[in-house]
């Protein structure tokens, strides 16, 4: 955890006389005092909320025959009202962790209510519509209570919706509005993240868009689509990370995510292009372009952005191994493949060490200026 690393580094700096002990203690105290830092109690609370939610859903699944139908509906609606007002009361009392847990259970009760009513009244409608309604309920709760936890829950439900759309349509192309509803939900989640300050929940939305694009490509692979993914990813990455780009300051403000996800999109596109490539020459040309893009990512954004750097290394290594397997591996047999792989990995290791050393030197000169 970051807290433990911070403490260890402080100790080292104090021992070297770089940092007075009182300052280190004050910094740690400030860090511990922050609202958003990891607290075991809060995490356990949300876990407890999730377990209670699961029990509600299981109760519904068990059909609950002992009660008359209308009584069951009244029960679940009472649960929805009770939990949301409990959350309001807890929020007013300053117990934000407990309030967030109550909201999560309240939202699960709503989802349970949708399933219960569908079952009791024999509504064999679309499961994806039910998932969408559940998402809408959770998103409304996130907005009304300005709750970061509910934003994360809505992000999870957006994924659940995507999964339902895929399974309902047997992984075939769904109808047009279904298709576009997935990125629309991702945009909604990003807006919720901005509104509720939910930080990490934004990755749920970005990953959802990447997963959606991969699905689109797998569903109807075409050279044009693969090229479009590669080109738009590359353009977005350069806009977000190239020094001198007018969008760069804006992207930097949002942290390392814009550069990382546009880079990931570009690599996804090149992986698709590699899949499209037929014949040795095209394979090698596409492979060389992929290697260049991986190196470009490391060179442009690798120094400030660790995530881009590691993704770049992984893509570079994966592409080299793929090329080695496709071209030389088939000629040399299995032992030859391992020989080539060993040489390739050694070469990459040498390159990575050079790059890391270069970047460390660049950072040092920057720091001493």
């Amino acid at each position, binding site marked *: 955890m970051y807290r433990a690393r911070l403490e260890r580094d402080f100790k080292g700096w104090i021992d070297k006389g770089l940092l007075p002990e009182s300052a280190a203690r004050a910094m740690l105290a400030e860090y511990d005092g922050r*609202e*958003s*830092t990891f*607290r075991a109690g*809060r995490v356990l609370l*949300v876990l407890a909320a999730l377990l209670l939610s699961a029990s509600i859903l299981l109760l519904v*699944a068990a*059909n609950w*025959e002992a009660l008359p*139908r*209308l009584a069951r*509906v009244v029960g*679940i*609606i009472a649960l*929805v009202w009770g939990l*949301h*007002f409990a*959350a*309001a*009361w807890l*929020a*007013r009392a300053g117990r*934000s*962790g407990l309030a*967030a847990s109550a909201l999560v259970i*309240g939202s699960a009760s*709503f989802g349970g*209510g*949708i399933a219960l*009513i*569908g*079952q009791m*009244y*024999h*509504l*064999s*409608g*679309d499961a994806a519509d039910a998932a969408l*309604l559940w998402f*809408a*309920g959770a998103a*409304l*709760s996130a907005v*009304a*209570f*300005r*709750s*970061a936890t509910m934003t*994360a829950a809505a992000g999870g439900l957006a994924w659940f919706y995507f999964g339902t759309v895929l399974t309902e*349509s047997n992984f*075939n*192309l*769904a*109808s*047009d509005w279904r298709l576009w509803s997935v990125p629309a939900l991702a945009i909604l989640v990003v807006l919720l993240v901005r*509104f509720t*300050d*939910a*930080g*990490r929940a934004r990755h749920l939305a970005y990953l959802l868009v990447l997963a959606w694009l991969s699905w689109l490509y797998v569903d109807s692979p075409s050279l044009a689509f693969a090229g479009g993914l590669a080109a738009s990813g590359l353009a977005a990455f350069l806009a977000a990370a190239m020094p001198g780009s007018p969008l760069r300051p804006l992207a930097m403000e949002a942290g390392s995510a814009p550069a990382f996800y546009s880079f990931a999109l570009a690599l996804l596109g090149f992986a698709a292009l590699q899949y499209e490539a037929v014949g040795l020459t095209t394979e090698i040309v596409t492979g060389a372009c992929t290697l260049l893009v991986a190196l470009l990512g490391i060179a442009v954004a690798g120094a400030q952005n660790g995530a881009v750097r590691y993704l770049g290394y992984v893509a570079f290594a994966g592409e080299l191994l793929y090329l080695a397997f496709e071209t030389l591996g088939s000629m040399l047999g299995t032992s030859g493949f391992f020989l080539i792989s060993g040489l390739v990995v050694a070469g990459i290791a040498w390159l990575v060490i050079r790059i890391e050393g270069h970047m460390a030197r660049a950072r040092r000169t920057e720091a001493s200026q």
Partner: protein
Amino acid sequence: MSGETQKSRWLNPLLAALLVAGAQTAALGYMIESRASILRSGREVLLKTVPVDPRDLLRGDYVILSYDISRIEPELFTGGFPAEEKEAQIYVRLEQQLDGFWTVTQAAFQPLAAAGDTVVLRSLPFVYYPSTPPAPVNVEYGIERFYVPEGEGRTLEEARNAEALSVDVRVDAGGKAQIREIAVNGSPVYEEPLY
């Protein structure tokens, strides 16, 4: 796990609770009422069920129902078929036969006007794949599931597969249907109350 918000509240939490719980209740209420209104004012239609393959399809606790109107022969279609693969809905005209059951007399990919003693039923959206010559079209109407208490599904399935099961549905003006009653050999076993 990101912590709770550091941004200030914009809504009194009590108001927020009222808004969220109210909207969620309204959504659940709408689900119940849209079905109840079909049962209350829809037209009554008696449908014959057909065996489901594979025979043993009790999914958790609902019985899958399939009707003779679920599969529509290409000759019944008027107004042509879509030329390419697309998401479509079809409309079927049902007419009562001498044995009391209703059956499809006309089908179309465009809305059909209600006429005389016929009832127009609308299918759920499905993806249509064209073929030459046109093949029979299989559709669902949203009345294919009937949830039963645990253990009771078997009896209904056996009756369904012996073609002894009949289903009484109500159809509203928009062509949507809901199950009102299920009968085995003509005697009702499940009668659905409005709420």
